[in-house]
Structures are given as C-alpha cells and as structure tokens.
C-alpha cells in the first residue's frame, strides 16, 4: 500500500479545493473579458446566423459620434460630481460624528440608511420628490417664496437686486426647475441622488479609519504645541487617513462609473443624452438595440478605465506602505 507523502496529499487537496473557484473564475470573469474583446471587433447581434469582422470600426464610432461624446461627458460629469462630494461629505460627517459627546450612534444609523435601501426604490421616491408640481422639493421652495422675509433674503431683493437676479429669485418668478426633465439640471439631480445614497458608505469607512488612529498621537501633538483643530487635522488626522482616502476615492469612483438604476428608471439617458452614462449606454446599445459589437467596444473601454483606476489605487497604497 503506497500512502502518498503528506506534502503530496496536501498539494492534491489544495488543487481540488481551489478547482471549483478556478473554473468559475475562468468561465465567469476571464472568459467574458475575452469575449468582449473579440465581439468588439465584430458586428455580432444575437439571433443573427453569422457576423462579420469590422476591425476597429466600433471603436472609431465611439470617437466620432456625438452620442458617445455626450456619453463620455455625462459619465465624467457624474463621476467628477459624485466622487468628491461623497468622499468629502463622508469625511465631514465622520469627523463631526466623532467629535460628538452624545448622539453618535443616532447619526451613524441615519446616514447609513440610504446605503441599505434599494437604490431603485429610493430613486423612484426621489423622482416623486423632485416632481415639478407634485414634488415636495419644488413645493417647499415655492413655500419659501411665500415667506416675505426669506424671499427678500434669498433673492437678494433686500440689497436692491432685481427679483429675478438670483437663482432663487428667478425660481420664485418663473417657477423652479423641472430637475430631471431639464438638460441643464438632470445630471445634477441624478448625481445628487448618487451622493445622497453613497456618502454613508464613505462615512463608515472613514469612521473605521479614524478609530485606527492611536490617541497617543494627539496627546503628543498637543505637547508639541498643535492646538487648533484645523492644525490637528492638517498635520495628523489627514495624513493618517491617507490610506483610507485612497481606498474610499477608488471605491467611490468605480461605483460612480457603474451608475445605472437612477438613469434607467428616471431619465432613460435623457434629456438630450445629458445623463447618458456608460453602463446605461452599454445596456441601451447591446441589450435594447442588439448592437452587441458596439456594446462590447464600450465594455472594453469601460473595463480598461475601471481597471486602471484600481491599479493606480494599488500603486498608491503600496507606496504608502513602503514609504
């Protein structure tokens, strides 16, 4: 009887235990990336008997057509609004909450609620809240117009400005925006919902980061004459939070690139493609219109961008660790 040596038994068990994960990772993650790369060079459509190779045509479409230029503008706008705002609000909320003597748990709970709630459901509620005539937002703003003192203060008419000179004053005179229906406001409204939903997530990560800073550092800084809260933040808290910040920024950026629920349910990419973000574009082109080749090209671009963001993050974290 030849019982294998323990090392060999262990190695064999290792392969067997890792095998299912390996197969699934290849089939469900690696293979699809390869498929996307291949399809992006074709005019493949589901249901058609064959397809032709079109080389880089799909990609040159992305560069030349105005729809895709608008897509890039909308996607970047969303990412560039939502990421800094979520990270900043998350950090601000975490710092404020940490400074409290009572009520920390309450605010933590409240700010984290939107992270738990289905974004689609909450998007539909926000749509109702932002409804031009029925919504609580415009009704609230109009009610403020009715309060003479407030109206004067907010519209600047106390300083002699014309009633329509400020944003608020103009709103009182001409009505407040359609929010989701106005090309100038739609991307901001969608971004606002994204920030509302996501900053609690940043807050939790920052709270975890803050609790990892040893209190002795603050005592030492106090000894060294660091007195003001701002100095303490600039010299101590912020540098100590650097790894957290790198992580929060990357995660938020990647999540922002993937915005879909709000766009599909509330604006359908419009008005005039002002909210035509990339994941929605992939969905619209490839799934709704069955232009799989174009969708695959978009997928490849998307993957490249998101993976680049992740790799930059890893570099930054590694440098921080070694420095």
């Amino acid at each position, binding site marked *: 009887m030849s019982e294998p040596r323990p090392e060999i038994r262990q190695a064999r068990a290792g392969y067997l235990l890792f095998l299912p994960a390996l197969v699934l990772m290849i089939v469900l*993650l690696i293979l699809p990336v390869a498929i996307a790369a291949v399809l992006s060079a074709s005019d493949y459509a589901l249901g058609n008997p064959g397809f032709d190779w079109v080389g880089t045509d799909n990609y040159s479409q992305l560069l030349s057509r105005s729809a895709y230029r608008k897509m890039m503008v909308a996607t970047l706008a969303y990412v560039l609004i939502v990421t800094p705002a979520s990270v900043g609000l998350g950090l601000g909320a975490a710092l404020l909450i940490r400074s409290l003597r009572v009520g920390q748990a309450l605010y933590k709970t409240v700010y984290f609620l939107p992270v738990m709630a289905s974004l689609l459901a909450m998007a539909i509620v926000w749509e109702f809240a932002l409804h031009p005539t029925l919504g609580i937002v415009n009704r609230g703003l109009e009610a403020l117009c009715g309060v003479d003192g407030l109206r004067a203060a907010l519209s600047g008419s106390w300083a002699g400005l014309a009633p329509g000179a400020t944003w608020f004053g103009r709103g009182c005179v001409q009505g407040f925006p359609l929010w989701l229906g106005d090309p100038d406001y739609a991307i901001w409204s969608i971004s606002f919902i994204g920030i509302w939903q996501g900053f609690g997530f940043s807050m939790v990560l920052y709270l975890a980061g803050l609790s990892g800073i040893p209190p002795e550092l603050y005592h030492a800084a106090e000894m060294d004459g660091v007195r003001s809260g701002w100095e303490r933040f600039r010299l101590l808290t912020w540098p100590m939070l650097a790894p957290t910040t790198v992580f929060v920024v990357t995660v938020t950026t990647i999540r922002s690139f993937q915005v879909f629920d709000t766009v599909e349910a509330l604006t359908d990419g419009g008005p005039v493609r002002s909210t035509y973000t990339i994941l929605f574009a992939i969905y619209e082109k490839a799934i709704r219109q069955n232009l799989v080749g174009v969708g695959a090209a978009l997928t490849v671009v998307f993957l490249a961008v998101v993976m680049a963001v992740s790799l930059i993050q890893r570099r930054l974290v590694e440098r921080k660790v070694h420095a």
Partner: protein
Amino acid sequence: MIRQFSASQTLAHLVLLIGAVVVLLPFYVMVATSFKSPSEIMTATGGAFGAQAPVVSRSCLARGGTDADCATLPVVENYREAFAKAPLWRYMLNGVAVTVSIFLLQVLVALPAAYALAKLRFWGRNAAFALVMFCLLIPVHAIALPLYVLLARLGLTDSYAALVLPWTVSAFGIFLMRQFFLTVPDDLVDAARMDGMGEFAIVWRVMLPAAIPALLAFAIFSVVAHWNDYFWPRVVITGNRDLFTPPLGLREFKGDLDGNFYGPMMATATVIVTPLVVAFLLAQRRFVDGIAMAGMK
C-alpha cells in the same frame, strides 16, 4: 472654555441634523405617500399619514361592488393595491431565493478556495492568488454584456439560473476569507490533521465555524448587494414576470403620473425597502462593522 466647547457641539449637532433631515426626507416621502389617498397626494395635504378619510377602492368597484361596500382606508387601499396589482409576494420570494442561493453558492466555492490559499502548500499557489487579485479588478456589472451573450447562447436567459450563476464565484469573498484564515493559528489545523481529519473535513468542520464573523460580514455585503440589485435582473429577465425580483416588480409600476398610482407604488417601495432596513436597525453594529470590514480589504 466649557461654554465654547458646547457651542461647537451645538454647531456640530445643527449641521448633522440638517444632513439627517435631507437623508431622511425621501424615506418620509415614501412612507407618508403610501398612507395617503390620491387626492391628498395630488394636493400635498393630509400631513404625515393622511387624514385617512375613507376612499372607494377602485379594484373593488371593478369587481362589481357598490360604493358603500368598497369604502376603505387609503392606507389599506394602497397596500392592498400594491399586493393585488402585481404578485408582490412572489417577487419577494424570488428575491429571497435568489439572494440566499447566491450567498450559499459563494460560500461553497469561496471557503475551500480560501482555505487552500491560506493553509495548504501547493505548486502554483502564488499564481492562484494572483489570479484572484486580478479577478478582483473586474467589476462584474461591467462584463454583464458578454455574460448575457453566453447565457443567451445557452438558452438560459429568463431563468433562475441566469439570476444566480454569474455571481457564484466572488473573488472578493475568496480574498476576504483568505485574509481571515491567515489569522487562524496553524496549530488548529495541525491538531485536526492529527485527529485524522481530511482536508475537506477541516474546511467544513474546523474552518467554517472559526470563520463565522468573516462570513457574517460577507453575508451582509452579498445580501445587500443582491437584494437591491436592479441592473443584472433587468438584463437577463426579459419577459417572464414570474421571475421578477423586488426591484423589477417595483419598476413595473412606473410610468403613470397619476395620484392613483403613487400610493400603491410607494407602498410597494416601502415593502421592498423594509426587510433590509429593519434588519439593519436591529443589528446596526454588525452591519456597519461588516460593511467596513468587507470594504476595507
């Protein structure tokens, strides 16, 4: 000195309270609207929970009832409509089935793989771990299109399999579990081997119980993501309403800008948001720590 300190505390509370009002506003709108009658919704009256003046149920009228038989409270009408208009129970059950299957399969795949990466020596282990790290870079929503094409070619769209299969492997789950297993002492594993346990038995009888805290963190992460997911079901469930998950069911209501619809729609939204929110309120620490732990890879 003390006075100044309380001033800054008051200011902090003030800022956080204003934030809290904005954060809670849509939850308030959702629940309040689900309680109101159509006319209260159109005119923004009725306060927080509506006046609850009886309304006439439209579906009851349609069944041939008289006005007197069909009088009901707006809140009852809205929630009854929510469950009557669409098979909401079915959608919820689908949501539970899909979410639970995904999590169980993820654990079934990730736990042995993580154990192998953390505790077993074999040729190629570093390459295997590098592969996991590479897969972590691939956002699954981004490769939805090729996955969809694959499933369509296999004739698997519009099936539970389509909702569950793509999520069975979680590179993130493998990574999280591996990091956790690294902290489990080797002595524990060696002792189990001395007792004559095979590696498979060790995974399920020694490592699984040891990994409960990490598994819980991962469970929260996975369940929150998949219960709320809208994108993937939207892609693969093209027609069969029997397979709808809660977000897809809610989506069905959309489109009619009419006070008669807002009540039931908000009732539906309340129903699908409630399970996770209640779970969160009951076990907040766990949720927040879990998400922070899962987030902080």
